[in-house]
């Protein structure tokens, strides 16, 4: 056996890959297929499915009632991604430009919030943002700066704030990795070749950090689009995202096929958005 392995290195590769492949097939591909199949079936009375083919679930997804939530989710995820990028890029830049001895400490500091449960951190935002009892509004009103509570809670603003807070480190890390790899002498070369510091950033730093920006944006956009904890807590029960509707179909309404259809459509929409985004960044990379 050992001899045979040595003679056929490709067998070794298969042996190493066998376990992760099996894992992915059973726990990743199979559920995906189930979701796909379920979205074309009729609902069972108490959850589950009836094995009858139908397109009704898919049709219902595009019902304005749900489709509006779809669009809203996209809007929230896009704004979240843009805001984390605007906040995250300078942060990543700062860390990458710090002395090497300090960089690891800064990255470490960035990761510290992850040690606390996401749910707890989101509830912490609740105590800050709540309309009448939230710390921010209470303080501002006590100080007489405002006379009516600000609408900080139960709206898109609160959800976006919560998502930005949650996903900021995920945006920073890949951008940091790209910037940290950037050879300082390339910037010097640009400056030497008559580029102002802005032009050097625009022509060298930015295009070379785009892979990090793309990775970070994907890592923020995808979970933001499917978010359900943040909107459930900070949306105040009024402002929902598609993730909440999906979870409701499975846990509350016992409509598995419709939940599956929503998931399928969301996945496809995400895929399309990702492809458009990749194409766009590729183009802007070429242009600069």
């Amino acid at each position, binding site marked *: 056996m050992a001899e045979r392995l040595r003679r056929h290195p490709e067998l070794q590769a298969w042996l190493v890959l066998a376990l992760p492949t099996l894992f992915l097939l059973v726990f990743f591909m199979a559920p995906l297929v189930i979701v796909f199949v379920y979205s074309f079936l009729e609902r069972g009375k108490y959850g589950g499915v009836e094995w009858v083919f139908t397109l009704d679930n898919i049709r219902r997804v595009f019902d304005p009632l749900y489709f509006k939530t779809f669009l809203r989710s996209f809007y929230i995820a896009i704004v979240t991604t843009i805001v984390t990028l605007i906040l995250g890029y300078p942060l990543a830049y700062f860390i990458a430009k710090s002395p090497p001895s300090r960089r690891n400490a800064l990255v470490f500091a960035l990761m510290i919030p992850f040690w606390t449960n996401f749910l707890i951190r989101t509830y912490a935002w609740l105590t800050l943002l709540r309309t009448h009892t939230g710390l921010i509004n209470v303080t501002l009103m006590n100080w007489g700066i405002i006379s009516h509570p600000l609408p900080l809670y139960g709206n898109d603003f609160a959800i976006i704030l919560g998502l930005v807070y949650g996903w900021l480190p995920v945006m920073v890390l890949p951008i940091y990795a790209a910037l940290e790899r950037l050879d300082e*002498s390339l910037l*010097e*070369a640009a400056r*030497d*070749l*008559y*580029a102002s510091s802005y032009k050097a950033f625009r022509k060298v730093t930015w295009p070379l950090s785009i892979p990090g920006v793309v990775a970070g944006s994907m890592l923020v956009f995808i979970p933001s689009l499917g978010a359900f904890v943040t909107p459930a807590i900070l949306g105040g029960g009024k402002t929902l995202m598609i993730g909440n509707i999906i979870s409701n179909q499975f846990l509350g309404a016992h409509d598995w096929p419709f939940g599956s259809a929503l998931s399928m459509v969301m996945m496809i929409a995400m895929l399309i958005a990702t492809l458009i985004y990749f194409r766009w960044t590729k183009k802007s*990379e070429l242009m600069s």
Partner: protein
Amino acid sequence: MTETYAVELRDVVKKFGDVTAVNHVSLQIRDGEFFSLLGPSGCGKTTTLRMIAGFEMPTSGEIYIQGERQGYRPPNKRPVNTVFQNYALFPHMTVEENIAFGMEMQKVPKDEIKRRVDEALAMVRLSGMAKRKPKQLSGGQQQRIALARALVNRPKVLLLDEPLGALDLKLRKAMQIELKALQEEVGITFIYVTHDQEEALTMSDRIAVMNNGIVHQVGGPEDIYEHPADRFVADFIGETNFIPVKVVSLSPEIVVELGTGQKVKAGWAEEGLTVGDKAVLSIRPEKMDLLEPQEVPQTPSEAIAYVPGTVTHLVYVGTDTRHTVALGDGTEVVVRLQNIYVGEEPWEIGETAVVTWNAAHARILKE
């Protein structure tokens, strides 16, 4: 009116925290000159170059380019261009875009950019490579693109930071000749940083030898080799013997006493030495000869030194043989003799030999 230099450094100091990288350096680099900054790593040569480019600002002192004081002027406002040690070609741009970069920043008209890029590519003989990315080129080709990218802007001064350091020996030798020819062709002042003394000697009109942030000597290659100003230069450039001596007299003639008590003359003594000082006599191995004891003339010339010793070591290196000879007090000197003697008995280990040299070649340097 004083002469306008291509680049002039006046008493420039650069400190990084507590470390003084460049220590009161003054240099005058003439128009059209191939000027090298030579020294071991960490000697301050690269920092000096980076200050001329504008990447670092002097802690004190002034830098003038074409007679203009640079002050805190940023790199993009200086009429110099740099060829970086690792080339620093923009990986996301083609060769063509790399070369055009400087002209685009200066808003040169498009058709002129096109023409000059083509010229620059022809100059470095890489015309077919315009559309390639730097990664697709060999080290030597990248090197030439880096050169083209800098020269295409027609700088007053080209700064080169060990540009050949990453190339293999053979390519490096070829590039040395090519670079020197190119410099003569374009007539631009080159300031060239290197730690390779042979490279500096081969290419330069003048060389500044640096160590620990200090310029030890500025001069032509021959001057620096033949007339090293101090022990560091003598040691760093080429091979040399340091024979410990004591200064006996400095004028009218320079006389020193060897460890054996024998007195010999020397052609030059470093400033600041006084009679009675301990010093070293510096002499190049190829400036010396070996004689059989009976070959020493009865009435030896005052200008020639004859010091008896014993051959202790022989190394044959092709063109010549390195003879290590222990003098009476145990000091070992290396004598290089060319292998041109026909029929003569070679020296053997243990033989008594008289080391001889012309006093004019001996330089007395501080320890």
